[in-house]
């Protein structure tokens, strides 16, 4: 797609749409290639009139599916893979739903030029909105708990987002409540994507993440494992994968307690449950302890060269838990999502302590 002609504002949207096409042949053998070169390298761009390079937002999605070489060696019957979502231009998986929610709102007229995008976010979604808005000419206002890291706030500010800081001890729920108050006071001024209730959040994963996984694994995956935050990743990816092959086991993960250090994850029994969450989708639901994820962050960096975030390592921990419960002789191909890398978590104490 890097040589696609006619690059323009809608290129990113067509990139999302493109992935949904040609999916009727399912299950058997290798699925067809997602992106075929539309013209040969030689017939294009040598005329000197075509734009070269790619649009920033066109680079969202199509992340690498990484194969673990060493960390999973205790489970010889299993192969482990993770989508390297930090390769999105905003640095996290959240570029996908943010782009889909914004484009969906433009299509349906809920986002008009001159309006401000306002939402509550613990960080990654905010970074995605801020980046996409800067690239598309919108203003962004974000409510986030003070407990979000300085690194995150600085990234948001760098993109020109306006920040409303809510008390750290109220967590993401406090930020959601504040965002709703701001909207209620001046409804016409804002577009509120409301990632916790917006179906475009999970649809982004239904349209892109799931089909990429299917494609990149040659349809071989047996297990899909992902953590729950807004639940968009798990809900959207699972819905599509189950259509492609209902036998794929889909396992959702949560922190082991209401009080935890897994950025991006929610403990559903004690938190405000997102509207888009569908508890009936998962074949199994497991929990991960924060310290176990921290230890795996350090191992993945040293043994695999992978600098994972705590939630990415927690997702991998979930895969290992499932692998430990496989039947003797059962072969498994795991795919999980690595929502972001460890770079935004370097000031955490666990690097020295755990």
């Amino acid at each position: 797609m890097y040589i696609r002609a006619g690059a323009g504002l809608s290129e990113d949207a067509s990139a999302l749409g493109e992935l949904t096409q040609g999916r009727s042949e399912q299950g058997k053998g290798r699925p067809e290639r997602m992106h075929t070169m539309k013209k040969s390298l030689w017939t294009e761009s040598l005329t000197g009139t075509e734009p070269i390079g790619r649009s920033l937002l066109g680079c969202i999605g199509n992340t690498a599916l990484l194969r673990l070489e060493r960390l999973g060696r205790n489970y010889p019957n299993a192969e482990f893979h993770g989508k390297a979502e930090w390769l999105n231009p905003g640095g996290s998986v959240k570029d996908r739903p943010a782009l889909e929610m914004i484009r969906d709102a433009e299509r349906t007229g809920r986002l008009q030029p001159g309006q401000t995008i306002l939402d509550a976010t613990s960080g990654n979604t905010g970074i995605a909105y801020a980046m996409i808005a800067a690239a598309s000419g919108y203003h962004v206002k974000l409510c986030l708990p003070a407990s979000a890291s300085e690194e995150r706030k600085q990234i948001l500010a760098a993109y020109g987002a306006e920040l409303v800081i809510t008390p750290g001890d109220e967590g993401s729920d406090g930020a959601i409540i504040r965002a709703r108050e701001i909207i209620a006071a001046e409804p016409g001024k804002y577009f509120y994507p409301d990632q916790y209730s917006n179906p475009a959040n999970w649809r982004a994963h239904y349209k892109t993440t799931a089909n990429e996984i299917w494609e990149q694994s040659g349809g071989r995956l047996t297990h899909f494992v992902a953590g729950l935050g807004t639940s968009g990743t798990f809900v959207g990816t699972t819905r599509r994968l189950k259509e492609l092959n209902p036998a794929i086991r889909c396992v959702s993960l949560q922190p082991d307690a209401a009080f935890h250090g897994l950025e991006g994850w929610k403990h559903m029994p004690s938190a405000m449950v997102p509207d888009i969450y569908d508890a009936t989708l998962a074949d199994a639901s497991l929990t991960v302890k924060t310290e176990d994820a921290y230890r795996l962050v350090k191992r993945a960096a040293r043994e695999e060269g992978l600098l994972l975030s705590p939630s990415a390592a927690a997702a991998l921990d979930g895969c290992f838990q499932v692998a430990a419960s496989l039947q003797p002789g059962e072969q498994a191909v795991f795919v999980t999502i690595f929502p972001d890398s460890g770079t935004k978590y370097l000031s955490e104490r666990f690097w020295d302590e755990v």
Partner: protein
Amino acid sequence: MAVKVLIPTPLRQFTGKQESIECGARTVGEALGDLTANFAELRKHLYTDEGEIRSFVNVYLNDKDIRFLDKENTRTKDGDTISIVPSIAGGSPNSTND
């Protein structure tokens, strides 16, 4: 000496929904000791089995991170406020850079 400990939302289920607890203490460590003596279920959420404060649990005395003060030995005075904030990515309880 009375200090106020602010309880983060996810832990209020263990303090009978109370948002803050008054503790008698001369240091931050004593205040948290007093707190977890009165609300035993809090203990495993705040401390490791070895008795260390868990690495994602950030403790602030009047908005200063105690890891940059005297850690749990940081002295408290009457009217001080201690906050417990889960590090969802290493933050502070207010918007200032400290």
